C-alpha cells in the first residue's frame, strides 16, 4: 500500500475538507475532472459544492480566495501550473500578502502551485516561482520534497492564518512514492537534515533534494560524507539548522532549480556568511538553473537545471578538486 507525492496532496485536501467545513477548493478543471494532475480526484464527488471549477481567470480566482478568506473561509486555490500564477501575481503579492498587516484581519488561504520542470514542458509549464513570492512580505512559501511533507505541510498550511504559497513539484507527483504516510511530522519553518555528513553541506529543497542525495551517493564513493539539508520552507527559512550544518562541515553548496539571479540560493548563502562566516573553510557556492527560459527539448532541459551529475561536480570543486 504505497502512496505517491501527488496522492499525499490529494489526501491532505480530502482530510482538510472533511475536518473543516470552511475549507473549499477553487481552480480550473478541478471538480469532476479532478484537475490537470488529478490532485483533486474524486474530491468534488466526496464533497459536493466545495470543489469548484473556475473560469480561466487567475487574477479573479485569487481575489475571490482573498475575499472568502477574510470572511472566515479557508480557500485552497489550485493554479493549473505555477507559471499561470503570473496572472494572479498582483492579487497574491498586493492583496493577500498585505491584508493582515494593513487591516489586522488574517487572510488564511493556500495557493497550490504545480511547480518545476519535467521533460518536454517548456518555458511556460516548468517554472519555479518560489523566490518571487518569498521576496514579498506577508507570504509563507513552502516547498515540500517528500511524500510526508507534501501531506503534513499541506495540512498545516491550511490551518495557518496566513496566505501560503505551496510549491508542489510536478516531477515528484508521480516519481516519488512512500510505502506509507510517515507519522513523523516536522513543523513548518524547520529544515530537515536528510543525510548526515561532515565534509560539506548541500542546502536545497523540492526536487533538487533528490538530485542532491544522488550526488551525495556519488561523493560517498570517493570517500566524502556530504550532509544534505532540506529547507522544506523557504520563507520562513530555518537559518539555525543551516548554520548548524555548516558548522559541522565547513562547506556550503546551495542548490535550487529556479533561475540563478537572486532567489533562494542567494538568500541561503547571504544568511550563512552573515552569521557563520567563521564557520566556512571554503567559499560558499550556488548551483541553479541556467539563466534562460526553460527549454522544451529533454536534451536541453537536462542541461538547464542542476542534476546529480552537476551537483556532484560542484561538490568536487567545493571540496577542492
Amino acid at each position, binding site marked *: 500500500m504505497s502512496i505517491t507525492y501527488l496522492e499525499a496532496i490529494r489526501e491532505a485536501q480530502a482530510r482538510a475538507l472533511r475536518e473543516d467545513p*470552511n475549507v*473549499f477548493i477553487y481552480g480550473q478543471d478541478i471538480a469532476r475532472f479532478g484537475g490537470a494532475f488529478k490532485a483533486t480526484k474524486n474530491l468534488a464527488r466526496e464533497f459536493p459544492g*466545495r470543489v469548484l471549477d*473556475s*473560469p480561466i*481567470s*487567475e*487574477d*479573479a*480566482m*485569487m*481575489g*475571490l*480566495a*482573498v*475575499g*472568502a*478568506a*477574510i*470572511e*472566515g*473561509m479557508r*480557500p485552497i486555490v489550485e493554479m493549473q501550473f505555477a507559471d499561470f500564477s503570473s496572472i494572479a501575481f*498582483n*492579487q497574491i503579492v*498586493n*492583496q493577500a*500578502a*498585505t491584508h*493582515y*498587516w*494593513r*487591516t489586522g*484581519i*488574517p487572510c488564511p488561504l493556500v495557493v497550490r502551485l504545480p511547480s518545476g520542470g519535467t521533460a518536454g514542458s517548456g518555458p511556460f509549464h516548468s517554472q519555479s516561482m518560489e523566490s518571487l513570492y518569498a521576496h514579498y*512580505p*506577508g507570504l*509563507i512559501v513552502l516547498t515540500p520534497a517528500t511524500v510526508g511533507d507534501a501531506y503534513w505541510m499541506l495540512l498545516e498550511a491550511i490551518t*495557518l*492564518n*496566513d496566505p501560503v504559497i505551496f510549491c508542489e513539484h510536478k516531477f515528484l507527483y508521480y516519481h516519488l512514492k512512500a510505502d506509507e504516510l510517515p507519522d513523523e511530522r516536522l513543523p*513548518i*519553518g524547520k529544515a530537515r537534515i536528510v543525510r548526515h555528513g561532515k565534509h560539506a553541506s548541500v542546502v536545497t529543497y523540492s526536487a533538487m533534494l533528490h538530485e542532491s542525495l544522488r550526488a551525495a551517493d556519488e561523493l560517498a564513493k570517493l570517500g566524502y560524507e556530504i550532509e544534505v539539508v532540506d529547507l522544506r520552507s523557504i*520563507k*520562513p*527559512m*530555518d*537559518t*539555525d539548522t543551516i548554520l548548524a550544518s555548516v558548522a559541522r562541515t565547513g562547506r556550503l553548496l546551495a542548490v535550487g532549480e529556479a533561475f540563478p539571479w537572486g532567489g533562494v540560493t542567494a538568500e541561503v548563502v*547571504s*544568511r550563512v556568511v*552573515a*552569521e557563520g562566516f567563521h564557520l566556512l573553510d571554503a567559499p560558499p557556492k550556488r548551483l541553479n538553473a541556467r539563466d534562460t527560459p526553460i527549454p522544451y527539448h529533454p536534451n536541453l532541459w537536462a542541461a538547464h537545471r542542476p542534476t546529480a551529475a552537476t551537483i556532484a561536480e560542484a561538490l568536487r570543486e567545493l571540496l577542492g578538486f
Partner: protein
Amino acid sequence: MDSHASLFQEGFHWMLLARTLEEKIAALYHAGKIVGGVYLGRGQEAFSASMALCLEKGRDIFAPLIRDQAGRMAFGEPMIDTARTYLGSALGPMRGRDGNIHRGRPSKGMPAMISHLGAMIAVVCGMLKARQFQGQSGTVGATCIGDGGTSTGAFHEAMNMASVERLPLVIAVANNQFAYSTPTDRQYGCRDLVDRAAGYGVEGYVVDGTDLEACLEVFTKAVSRARAGHGPQMVVGNLLRLCGHGAHDDGSYIPDELKATDLGRDCLKLARQRMLNKNWATLSELEMMEAEASEAVQQAVAQAQRDPLPDPAQESWQPISSTWLMETMTNSPFHTDSKRA
C-alpha cells in the same frame, strides 16, 4: 413623510457631510498637513451615497473606491476613520500603515481597497461566496469602479466570475468622463459602458449620476434584484468629476463645454434645491444642517489631530499573523543580517 422622501433626505445628509469633510481634507492637504494623495468625490456624492443607502448595514458588503466618501459614510463609516487615516493617526483603522482612501473595516463588511484598480471586485465576489457557503444567501455585495477601471483585466475577470457564480453583486460604474487626465475616447470604444453588461450576462442600468432621486431609484431596484437572486447588476452613472484627479491636480484639462453640460451639474446643489422645492426642508433648516456638518467635521479632524502618531519603535513589523513563525521569517529585527531575534 413617505419613505421615498426620507431616503432622499438621508441621502442628502450623507452627501452634505461627505462634501463638507472632503473640503476640510483638501484644505488640510493644501496647508501641508496631509502627506500623500487626497482624492475627492466631488460631484459623485449622489451616486455613491445612493448605492450605500440601499444596502443593509451589518449584513451587506460595500467595497468603496477612491471617490466614495459619501457611500462610506452612508454605509456607516464614522467620520473619524477618514480623518485618522488621512492624518496617519495610530488609532485609525489603518494605524498609519496605510493612508487616505486605502482604508476599511473588513469585519464590518467594508474591505480596505488596494490601489490596483479592479482588484476589489473579485474580493467582493469571494466575500459573497463565503456568505453563500455559510448559508447567508441574502447578502448583497456592492462595489464601485470608474470609467478607467473598466479597462482592467481584473474588472473583466471578476464580472465574468460573478456571473458564472450568480453572485448578488452590484457594481456601480461611475463614468465621470475622465480617468485622471484621460478622456473616455482614449479609454473605451463602446457606445456606452452599460453595453458591457450583456457581455457578462448581467442586468444593466444607466442613470443620471447627478440626480439623487434617480440614483436612489436605480440602486433600490438593482440591490433588490441582486438580493432576490437575479445575479450581478451593473449600474452606470453618468456624471463629471467636479475636481482634479487628486487635490494636487487642478483638472484644467476638463473642457468648459463639458462642465456646462448636464453631466457637469453639482449633485449636491441639485439635491439641496430639491429639498427646498419639495418642502422637505426650509432654508434655515438646511443652513442648520450645513452648520452641523461643519461642526461635526471640525470635531472629527480636531480629535484626529490630537491622536498619537504611529511610533516605529512600537511597531511590531510583523507581516503575518502566525507570530511563532516570525523568528525565522527574516533575519532582522534591525533588518540587517547580523542581529537576529
